[in-house]
């Protein structure tokens, strides 16, 4: 189960992780070894076994639709690297026409 350089770079980009050439090489080896161990699950016969995504048999936990106190806008923004006019500020997303 050896990953290629390209696969590591592809996964890193999907995961939004910038990566140096050295890191790509180091992670390639480590991830390959871990995946080889994890791949043992692929050998198990599980034809009639349903998957478990969650240990509790809970579905649709709802509450009454009434307004309750929550964090103020000011507090919510207090942790932001950058904010302006009551909003989170990020670099430009849409190009100017």
């Amino acid at each position, binding site marked *: 189960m050896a990953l290629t350089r390209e696969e590591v770079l592809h996964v890193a980009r999907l995961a939004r992780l910038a990566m140096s050439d050295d890191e790509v090489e180091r992670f390639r080896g480590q991830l390959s070894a871990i995946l080889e161990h994890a791949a043992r699950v692929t050998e198990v016969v599980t034809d009639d076994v349903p998957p478990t995504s969650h240990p*509790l048999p809970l579905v649709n936990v709802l509450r009454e639709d009434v307004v309750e106190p929550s964090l103020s806008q000011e507090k919510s923004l207090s942790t932001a690297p950058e904010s302006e006019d009551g909003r989170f500020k990020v670099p430009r997303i849409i190009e100017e026409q």
Partner: protein
Amino acid sequence: MAELWQLDAAALAKAVRDGEASAREVVDAHLARIEAVEEDVHAFITLTPEIARAQADEVDRKRAFGERLGPLAGVPTALKDIFCTDGIRTTAGSRILEEYVPPYDGTATIKVREAGMPLLGKTNQDEFAMGSSTENSAFGVSRNPWDLARVPGGSSGGSSAAVAAGMAPITYGTDTGGSIRQPASLCGVVGVRPTYGLVSRFGLIAFASSLDQIGPFARTVRDAAAALYAVAGHDPRDSTSIAQAVPDYVASIDKGVNGLRVGVVKEGMGEGAQPAVVARVQEAAERFAGLGCSVDEVSLPSFDLALSAYYLIAPAECSSNLARYDGVRYGYRADDPRDVMDMNMRTRAHGFGDEVKRRIMLGTYALSAGYYDAYYGKAQKVRTLVIRDFDAAYEKFDFLICPTSPTTAFKIGEKADDPLAMYLSDLFTIPTNLAGSTGISVPCGLADDGLPVGLQLLGPPLSEELLFRAGYAFEQDLGPLPDPPLWGAR
């Protein structure tokens, strides 16, 4: 006469109630103890002495006014740095949250405060709870009070080391794959991984949401039971929390184990574990027989496979949970980003350590197109097999025992460059997390290397009351462990 910091939580709470010591004196004794040994142990990321003293003064004021004090009032504590604390920096052991100060308290934080337990500080941990040694903390490794050249275990290693070193009688951590039980075992203290959903996770920084659970550390089983009782219970702010009353674990703790059926997990007693560890657990099995239990071997065939399934499921959930660290709403943001993509990529590259990056990439891979069914889907089916194995075992046995960790505490650096070797330290704890059930680690003696060994008691969901009873009976019969060498240090 023992010093205040050497007393367990039950004795401290009694001293405060009876007016033999003020809560302020108890806190000051622990702050002085921290002052004396923290440089060696490094159990804390942040200390909060002013807050601890103010909370202690509040307990003393209540007592002076004749108000009723809770069972743990005046007992100082510390929280793993993954519990959100309003106004107190909360890093999760990560550079990406190095300056994060939550604007709110988590439910467990609130419950600990309402119990009258002064907060001494926030304890060290592997980054985002990913690791088994605290070596993945962005703020340096914690050291084992039994041998400062060794790890305290992890990820909640700061919490276990603090209890073992006498810096706090009770601390709290989280257990996603063994992160409470394994460090408890390596530090010779009691650690509890409660049933999934027993303790609210509102305000807990998420790692793997179908596996994470909050639980306590203490030096006695009785203290651990009281500490869990203080934080357990339904919370409307956590939709995964169980809506059921919590029994008073301490009230029933001395009922004994006569007539209970104990299963010794065969897969935990083989060549995968250090011989002296297996020997101590074998002796524990004989001790339970002596206490009136019937003891027999039980096989959980999927025990080994659980590790493989876990290292697909936990990374998959972590890759999704940690997507929130994008440099927008909180935490670190890379300087002068060209655009949003550049901001995301460089923020995360700088903010996360290697182990977190590895797990995010593993999870992203396991969830990506073409691999989802083969890896993640298959791991979820193996998870069902693990649950079926436990269900079958609990038809024949009331609880199971096996080693908590395959080995005693290992040397700092020994496994740091080999992620897979590190993962194997959670071999015996992971199945419980996959099943959503409960487990306790109780010290069961020392190995031939002079380091503590943890006995793991496993039970079906919501069997904490029974496990505390069994752990208490065992602990009382065994008698106390010798003190760690650091105990005498001043």
